[in-house]
């Protein structure tokens, strides 16, 4: 096996190399998940409790008024929880990925492997949390006796995929910037908080007719993802325009993130 080490000239994704190191995805994800819940009493329950708390708070304080104003066809808690679960993939996926390079600086400085593995594994960790929380969601569906549109189950993977692409795009961009500008670390929490309110997670997108609000809600790649998820409940119709726009935006975000990350990763070891 011959190899060459030389200055990077042309852009490539490095898929072949990622495949060679595929086992590392497993190990990094496994480590992140393991370490996250080590020495906690509730362990994996935390993956469920976080979205559940938000849902309860919003149901108690805003649930009725949101339902009334937007003519929700399903009980508000089901609506909010479905949003929060998908939002969990995006928010923790993005922020884990964004911090991952700096958090693993000691490894990056000492050993080589395709750098993309670290942020991607960080996202996979968030995805595992999502799957852990699914049973609780199913229980909620039973409690509120929501009727399901089972053919829409096929949309669920697409929805998760769009969410992952967007989370990865933002995460990679922020991760690369974070290595160079530590300011990013402080931007992330408030970015996540802000994004939650321009995403139809806890309220449907028809809550405001303000054109600025509509512009952000439509452009938001999670709008389409949420639309696809909620197609699961009978009484919902999918706005295909939103879905296609979301797909396009998420792909664009992903490409931007990957290209910027790949272009700058050579100097991570010097700056991290």
């Amino acid at each position: 096996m011959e190899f060459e080490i030389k200055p990077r000239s042309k852009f490539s994704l490095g898929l072949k190399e990622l495949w060679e190191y595929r086992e590392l995805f497993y190990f990094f994800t496994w480590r992140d998940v393991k370490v996250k819940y080590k020495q906690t009493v509730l362990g994996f329950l935390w993956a469920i409790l976080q979205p559940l708390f938000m849902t309860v708070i919003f149901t108690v304080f805003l649930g009725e008024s949101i339902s009334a104003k937007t003519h929700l066809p399903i009980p508000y808690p089901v609506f909010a929880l479905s949003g929060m679960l998908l939002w969990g993939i995006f928010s923790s996926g993005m922020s884990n990925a964004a911090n991952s390079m700096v958090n693993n600086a000691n490894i990056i400085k000492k050993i080589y492997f395709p750098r993309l593995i670290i942020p991607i594994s960080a996202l996979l960790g968030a995805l595992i949390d999502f799957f852990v929380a699914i049973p609780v969601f199913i229980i909620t569906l039973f409690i509120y006796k929501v009727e399901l549109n089972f053919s829409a189950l096929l949309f669920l993977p697409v929805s998760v995929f769009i969410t992952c692409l967007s989370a990865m795009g933002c995460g990679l961009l922020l991760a690369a910037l974070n290595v160079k500008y530590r300011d990013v670390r402080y931007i992330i929490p408030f970015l996540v908080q802000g994004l939650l309110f321009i995403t139809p997670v806890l309220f449907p997108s028809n809550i405001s007719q303000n054109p600025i609000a509509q512009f952000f809600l439509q452009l938001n790649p999670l709008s389409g993802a949420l639309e696809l998820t909620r197609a699961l409940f009978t009484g919902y119709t999918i706005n295909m325009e939103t879905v296609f726009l979301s797909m396009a935006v998420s792909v664009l975000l992903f490409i931007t993130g990957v290209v910027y990350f790949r272009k700058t990763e050579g100097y991570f070891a010097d700056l991290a």
Partner: protein
Amino acid sequence: MIHHEQQPYLSLRDSISTIFKRKHTKEDFWALKDVSFDVMPGDTVGIIGKNGAGKSTLLKILSKITPPTSGKITGRGRIASLLEVGTGFHPELSGRENVFMNGSILGMRRSEILKNFDAIIDFAGVEKFIDTPLKHYSSGMQLRLAFAVAAFLENEILIIDEVLAVGDAEFQKKCMGKMSDVSKSGRTILFVSHNMSAIAQLCASSVFLINGTVRQTGKTEDVIGAYINLSSGNNESIFRPQNRLGPGEVTVTNLTLNKKELLSGEKMTLTFSLSKKVPISSVYLDFRIDNHMGEKCVWISDKLTIKPKEDTSVDKVIYEIPRLNLNIGIYHITYCLFINNRVEDMADNCLAFDVMENNFYPNWKFPPKEQANVLADFTTHYE
């Protein structure tokens, strides 16, 4: 090439503020330039040089951590770099989990780790605690586990940075043994160290770097010789007395050595210069050599051999040690000057000097530093 600017950490504010400044002072610094050498399969090559010579940069480039600005390296085989042991160890994970994590970061396949798992645990000697979180391990145990994983790497090319500079003497010996086994197994090793005896023991050929360029390549013996020659005697030791006592009518104004970095086993000459404000009738001077820990090693005095010099015209006291039998390390000199049989001037740690490696014993070997300061010639007979 590394661009170095004034601030190691950039922040957005700095970048924005520099947009408005016309002159952005940026200086190019080449950590390595025109470095070229060949390593054949099965060779064990040492890389030596002072701090800042570019050794670590070379290793970083060889192990693909940092891409080169220009130039090319061609190789054949799987490459593994050990710039430190235990990369990726996490205190919350158990010993077993860390072996897998660390192994896979180093580039081992899961199947390889499984195959060698028992041997790794055995080498590290941590069977009992293998499912205990790493944070409960002693630092020695962590180190042994880390080295054990690295020792079972099966890559054809190994790049090793001074991983041997850690651990106790016994463990270092074990590591050296393992390293020489590995080098005999036909694999290619690039080894960076400040420890000349380790280099001499392991590497047949070596590369000597200086200021980012290759100074010399060739047989390890010659290269080490060149390194030692160049690094010794290049700057003067400074006479800087501390805790000085005495009336000060006659004082030592300077102390010079024949070389700053002396080689063990070499001739050492100490010249004490005196300044006199009053006439003197007799003079003698003691001095002591302490190691960097302040442990007393050698005490030398005229009183041991001759009578104090009855002379009024002395301005210099010169001591000569024909064969300096000190272990490698940094030493300090403390002196005491007697004039007319009373203490006239004394000071602690007035001068520091380095004792460098040499072939005092064959193979550039030296006793472990914590075992001995002073060396002795010897012969052995087995009967």
